């Protein structure tokens, strides 16, 4: 990853392609430095068990960040992912516990409910032309209220479907506590990366973010694709809701507020531009990991909590600045 700077400027096809990928890997350098620092600072940091803990902690925010990467590349934003996720968790509870659906149907239903939230956001942004910030802020409020209303301000437990908590927690590697949820996260990374890089969906995501008017005049049905992009982001929100409810074996109707900023921060730290047109999945993953590693490492070091947020803020600033410096240096 440090070889980037020495790359020749001649751009044969492959090298040119790789350059884009490598730029994100520069954020990777920051991640590595942070990991090395904590590994030296605490003997308890670089253990298998703790690394799994970090991945578990990164899973829900990470999945939200993956989905919202698409939205941000279009130049939009989605503030509803945090409370939307909570609402999807509650819907899982409604489907499985209140309505007694079979496990697969409840999970699918909740994921599709996420898609519905995304679809409505997409309609508001794309058809009604409401600025994404406002449309999704409104959805954020609506979702947070509905979670409380639907659940009756009480957590919903999954008494009828004991298997539900396995979705996040089941150990899938014998002899090691590697939970299924993390594996799902890794799969979703692959899915998102393929979607963004190899499909027409990904291409249009970039085109719309790069120049929406020009894309529309090129005959692309921008309205339709934008709705689809928000809907796909909603699928990720739904999945995150299922996983977070599964982790806690209960649908908690509160919270979620603030999670959207964390997810968006992961995306932006990973080099995706809020102006749209630029971004990558690998960058988002690195961004999410930087956040998760920082939080975990500072806690392992027992840094007083009030100093932790100061440190996280400072490190984010430095990491992003170094990234900018190196890109400029090339």
């Amino acid at each position, binding site marked *: 990853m440090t070889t980037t700077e020495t790359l020749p400027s001649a751009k044969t096809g492959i090298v040119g392609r790789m350059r884009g990928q490598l730029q994100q890997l520069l954020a990777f350098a920051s991640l590595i430095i942070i990991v090395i620092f904590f590994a030296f600072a*605490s003997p*308890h*940091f670089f*253990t298998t*068990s*703790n690394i799994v*803990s970090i991945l*578990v*902690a990164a899973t*829900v925010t990470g999945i939200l960040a993956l989905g919202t990467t698409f939205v941000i590349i279009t130049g939009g934003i989605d503030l509803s992912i945090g409370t939307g996720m909570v609402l999807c968790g509650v819907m899982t509870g409604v489907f499985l516990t209140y309505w007694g659906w079979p496990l697969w149907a409840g999970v699918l239903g909740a994921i599709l409910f996420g898609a519905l939230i995304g679809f409505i956001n997409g309609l508001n942004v794309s058809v009604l032309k409401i600025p994404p910030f406002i449309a999704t802020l409104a959805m954020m409020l609506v979702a947070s209220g509905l979670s*409380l209303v639907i659940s009756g*301000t*009480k*957590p919903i*437990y999954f008494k009828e479907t004991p298997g539900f908590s396995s979705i996040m*927690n089941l150990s899938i590697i014998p002899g090691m*506590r590697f*939970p299924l949820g993390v594996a799902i996260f890794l799969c979703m990374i692959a899915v998102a990366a393929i979607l963004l890089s190899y499909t027409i969906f990904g291409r249009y995501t970039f085109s719309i973010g790069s120049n929406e008017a020009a894309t529309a005049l090129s005959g692309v049905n921008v309205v339709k694709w934008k709705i689809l992009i928000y809907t796909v982001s909603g699928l990720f929100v739904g999945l995150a809701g299922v996983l*977070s409810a599964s*982790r*806690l*074996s*209960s649908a*908690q*109707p*509160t*919270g979620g*507020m603030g999670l959207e900023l964390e997810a968006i921060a992961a995306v932006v730290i990973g080099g995706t531009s809020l102006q749209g047109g630029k971004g990558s999945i690998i960058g988002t993953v690195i961004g999410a990991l930087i956040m998760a590693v920082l*939080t*975990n490492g500072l*806690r*392992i*070091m*027992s840094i007083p*909590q*009030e100093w932790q947020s100061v440190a996280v803020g400072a490190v984010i600033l430095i990491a992003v600045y170094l990234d900018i410096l190196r890109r400029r240096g090339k």
Partner: protein
Amino acid sequence: GCTDSGSGDGETAASGDKPYVAIVSKGFQHQFWQAVKQGAEQAAEEFDVTITFEGPDTEADVDQQIQMLQTALDKGPDAIGFAALDSQAADPLLQQAKDANIPVVAFDSGVDSDIPVTTASTDNKAAAAEAAKQMADLIGHEGKVALVVHDQTSVTGVDRRDGFVEYMEKNEPKIEIVDTQYGGGDQAKSADLAKAIIAANPDLKGIYGSNEGSAIGVVQAVTELDMDGKLTVVGFDSGKAQIDAIKDGLMAGAITQNPVGIGYETVKAAVAAINGEKLPKTIDTGFFWYDKSNIDSDEIKAVIYE
């Protein structure tokens, strides 16, 4: 003041000629507060008054609570129930209530002022000390323990931390408190930080979680790390997950307050105040230690909630 004096016009937000009690609590989303609300509603039914119950989104939001109190005053209630996030911040408004002859009943953690006619509350420090005492007994009076607290600044957070820590410092020289972290009462966040504490202290004996979300988060961490039985978890408050954890042996036990009782007593006292009755300065609603042994007893069943 020029407050719209609503007490007489009978056109309060709630209909009819029933007396109206506006309750401004410290929260409304938590189970704990829902239980308080439940108790308040129970009393409202019984004494035939209308109530409204609201509280800020988080217990850090002093400003939001002040606004709610202001709005409650503007509605011209016959009495107010109030659990202050910060008593001093509320002082001008309490003064305003006094000027308008609206009696104020303080509840939960109390209001540090002369204005309230009475206070129905839990002694959180004493309750936390009880949790510490139980923890010390459970781990054999020596070893390392840590705290996962719901809040760094609210009175309940601070009291439940300090009550625990002070007890240990005073009475348990062989117990070392290695870390205190704050998870905002959020289960997932509390679980993640408890896991970090456990990772950093492999010889940790026990963790205390200072409210429902914190305690359940700690239990979650223990399960995720496959450490069931290797770590003593002591909690606070109740709720279904906590009751299950105690029954399953994942949690040794917990302190519960009497939230339904707090709500009930608050409204009851408000009605008495409206009727001009004399009230005691404090109404101690008490706290209880519960564990596997007494969880099904009638005494405990009355104060825990699912």
